[in-house]
């Protein structure tokens, strides 16, 4: 028994090789991000830049939700709650952090965060605000992951709709609690005088957390989006991802095959919440403020819609849906007051004519492969 266990462990490569194994992908993501940052961002102007950042943030959130809703088949409609939580934590970290470090909350980024030409390159490439920003986002992600653990636990007992309702309830509770928090401390002297733990409850209340330094640029959205995609993709290929997919297909059968369903479900929640929290950090540092009131459950539905429209469990589908559903309302701006009506009707029509989503459960390349095979003869084996 022990021998068997030891041997089955050898099938997967040791954990420390995670970085080298994904090095190429990471380098590609980094290269794309730097290229977009250096060439595309100055060329397209502010408006398109903002839309592209929105796309990146929505990809982070939609793909992370795919891990719960798409892979595992659990039904979470409280994703915006994690996003809000992570966003607040990240915003508070950079705002209070810069107040404590540099005695003002202004922008302290390096080159990678400068959105405007005149912004000052103040504190070295990573020694300045950028590092604080990334730390804030990661911290936000971790706190959100903790909340994801708490939300995932009821999946022990609850299934389907009931779990959905609980996630919705959790999302709303997070929103209300954040809205009931104390007023934001704005004077530098007050911040320095306060106990850091007191600052964790000074999150702006109903007015939202404002004056967040603006750090999010295309570089960061592409980097975070790319990492989210990479993790989701590698997860789907791994044995852990297969376990998640098996839960979606048939929970009872999965359990019979030895999949620890409870642990796997909670894990899916934790991973998804982590990335949602990071996405929230990006969101807060893009707008310069974050307000829990605007991130209610309708926002969660936006992401659920992206996942379902893309096809359950299809990473490329969710990505495409995130792009389309971010760009579409922008394109419809021409018809101002009708745009949300058109959007809603498109959604309904889409559900009627293609209920399985854009790609179904498959990925884009899996759909393209048969096509290319038909066109160029049977190059690959069936």
């Amino acid at each position, binding site marked *: 028994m022990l021998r068997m266990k030891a041997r089955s462990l050898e099938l997967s490569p040791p954990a420390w090789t995670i970085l080298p194994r994904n090095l190429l992908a990471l380098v590609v993501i980094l290269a794309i991000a730097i290229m977009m940052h250096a060439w595309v961002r100055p060329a397209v102007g502010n408006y398109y830049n903002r839309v592209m950042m929105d796309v990146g943030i929505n990809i982070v959130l939609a793909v992370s939700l795919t891990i719960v809703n798409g892979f595992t088949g659990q*039904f979470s409609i409280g994703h915006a709650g994690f996003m809000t939580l992570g966003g607040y934590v990240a915003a508070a970290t950079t705002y209070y952090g810069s107040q404590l470090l540099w005695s003002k909350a202004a922008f302290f980024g390096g080159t990678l965060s400068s959105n405007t030409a005149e912004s000052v390159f103040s504190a070295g490439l990573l020694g300045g605000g950028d590092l604080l920003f990334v730390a804030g986002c990661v911290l936000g992600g971790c706190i959100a992951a903790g909340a994801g653990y708490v939300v995932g636990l*009821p999946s022990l*007992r*609850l*299934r389907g*709709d*009931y779990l*959905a*309702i*609980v996630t*919705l*309830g*959790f999302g*709303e*509770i997070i929103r*209300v*609690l954040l*809205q*009931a928090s104390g007023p934001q401390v704005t004077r530098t002297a007050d911040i320095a005088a306060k106990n850091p733990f007191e600052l964790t409850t000074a999150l702006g209340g109903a007015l939202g957390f404002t004056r967040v330094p603006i750090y999010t640029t295309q570089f960061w959205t592409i980097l975070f989006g790319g990492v989210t995609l990479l993790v989701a993709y590698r997860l789907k290929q791994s044995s852990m991802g297969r376990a998640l997919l098996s839960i979606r297909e048939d929970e*009872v059968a999965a359990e019979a095959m030895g999949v620890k369903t409870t642990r796997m479900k909670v894990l899916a929640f934790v991973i998804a919440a982590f990335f949602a929290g990071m996405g929230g950090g990006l969101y807060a540092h893009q707008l310069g403020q974050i307000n829990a*009131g605007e991130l*209610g*459950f*309708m926002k969660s*539905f936006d992401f*659920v*819609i992206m996942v*379902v*429209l893309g096809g*359950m469990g299809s990473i490329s589908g969710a990505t495409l849906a995130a792009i389309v559903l971010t760009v579409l309302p922008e394109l419809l701006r021409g018809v101002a*007051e*009708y745009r*949300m*009506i058109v*959007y*809603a*009707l498109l*959604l*309904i029509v889409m*559900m*009627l004519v293609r*209920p399985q989503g854009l790609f179904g459960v498959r990925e884009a390349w899996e759909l393209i492969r048969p096509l290319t095979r038909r066109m160029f003869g049977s190059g690959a084996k069936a």
Partner: protein
Amino acid sequence: MTKFLQTLMDGISIGSLYALIALGYTMVYGILRFINFAHSDIFVLGAWLSFSVALCAGWTASGAPLLFPTWLWTVLIVVSVLGPLLYVVERTALPALRSSLGPRVPHALAGGFVVTAAVWAWVLVGLVFLARATTASASFRPLTGVVILVIAMGGCGLAGYLIERLAYKPLRAAPRLNVLITAIGISLFLQNSGQLKFLFGTQPQKMPELMENKPLAVVAGVAINRVDVIGAGTAVALMFALEWLVFHTRLGRAMQAVSYNTRVASLMGIDVDRVISFTFVLGSALAAAAGFLFVMKLPGALRQPADTGWVLLGLKAFVAAVVGGIGNIRGAMLGGLFIGLLEYFGVAYLRPELRDVYVFVLLIIVLLVRPSGLLGKATVEKV
């Protein structure tokens, strides 16, 4: 003591409205097993419809009442012509076409459906004129409120019927998630089309006072207002009517049968589609009544149709349905009252800014301890 009684009264009067909305959620869930997220928008539609009809009937001091705009008449007339036309084509030409062209020709053009909708709409138009007539004569003026309630219920019933037929019915066999997304789509559609200039607009309004709100009695320092008594009375009466309808009529028995087992019910000769349509109409009408009573009680709370406050109200009603045991009609009534009381006592005696937290914490506790709700039956998953 005064505070306690006041809170109790507020809790009960708002709780009975939650219960009315929750009934719609619970009936639809009981039969179709999906959360109808568009239901809270039907409630909003009810509130705004009562307001518009009150204006139409002449309940404003300022100027002549506006009757229907041209576009509404146009739609009505087009539909009324189209319906019978489709129906005739369906009856005469389609069978012949089918026999010659084969099964790709559809069975029906939904002519009967359009005719039903058109007749329904004309009845509502007639009722609006009736409301005008009652407003005009002083002796019938107290009756206007009843007519407006009936119009709101009928209008929302029609909306529920249309939504079910056009959006949900084609998805009967689809995964539940798709139906849910469709419901969200409809919710967005209703919210945003309600904001259009020629419908309700984006400005909050104030409901005209249909009756003088004077205190009927004073008990221990708490004034019992006429509007509260009539509102709670209407809500309770509607709930009794529903109870009778579901548990003591043939149609109600059919509803129970469909919710128990749809397939077997259809094998027993129950027209499942009709029962589902009827359920939607019923639920929507109850939500409309809740909307009417809500703006009667709080005339200043008529916020613009897409306001998040409405969504939250609907969400709490939904929580009420879950707490009572979703799919269970008596549970929804109980849950509504419970949520109303919890909310108002929480606000009065604990921290008021956490008013929504109490409701959702209760939701989570109930789901963890007793997932099937207070009155719901536990379901065992079969392998």
